[in-house]
């Protein structure tokens, strides 16, 4: 047996070049366009949102100052804010003849006082 008979040459099936050309054409037609431009708008929005979040999260907010400015019942109870009624006093003659009554309201930011006279 010779090495030639051990390695007999086969003939490839016909039409190989045409098939290769078709495959190349299909590949070219199906080649995706650059994908990154499509991400630019989405990326810009995401970046802007991330920046806003970072800025907001990093702002130094003093919780006590916030509580004081809010001044709700809870903050008053905790001693962080004064009761709105503390600041309200009658002046002058009214102090002798009047009375101040706080009217309950549903909104902690709103304080309504009723002033009555004793005369």
């Amino acid at each position: 047996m010779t090495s030639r008979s051990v390695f007999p040459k086969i003939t490839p099936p016909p039409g190989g070049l045409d098939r290769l050309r078709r495959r190349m054409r299909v590949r070219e037609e199906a080649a995706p366009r650059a994908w990154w431009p499509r991400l630019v708008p989405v990326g810009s929005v995401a970046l802007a949102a991330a920046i806003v979040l970072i800025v907001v999260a990093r702002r130094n907010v003093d919780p006590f100052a916030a509580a004081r400015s809010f001044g709700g019942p809870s903050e008053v109870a905790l001693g962080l804010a004064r009761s709105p009624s503390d600041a309200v006093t009658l002046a002058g003659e009214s102090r002798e003849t009047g009375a101040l009554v706080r009217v309950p309201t549903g909104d902690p930011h709103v304080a309504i006082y009723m002033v009555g006279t004793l005369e």
Partner: protein
Amino acid sequence: MVDTRESAALDEAQLERLYVKLEARIVNVVYRWVWSAEEAQDITQDAFMKVWSMRESVDVATVEALLYRTAVNMASNRRRKRKLWGLFGLDTIAEPTSLAAAPDEGLETARSSARVRAAIDALPEKLRSVVVLSELSELPYEEIGAILNIPEGTVASRRNTALKRLAEALGGLEEASP
């Protein structure tokens, strides 16, 4: 030979010329891994498509070696996968297709073809790639060495070892007369 002086990047016409030049040789090489002419041609085409897909970075001067290397690697991978699938009964190595009809010489009987195939199959990968490339690619040892990334001397010694093993398996082997 493809003219490498005009441009560095591989163009379509160059690839087609390469295909015409190399198709039969690469199919013959790959055939010794998959034992199916159709599958060998598929793998050859896959190798060309792979090289085409990376044409921007391909050095035209070494593209032939790259095509052979790609095809041999693909064939080897395909064979390995088949063996793996075969373990689970999902696939088997294809039977030789029309081997008796395909060779130009037409000397092989079905029995001797099977013996030859078994002998080549029994060669380790590194011996098989050397002996198949040296017998069928028509490339000098230097270029086979470049394809397989081994020195020229190693190509010669592996070829001798491979032929010796084939001779043992087939009960003698003579060098073909030119």
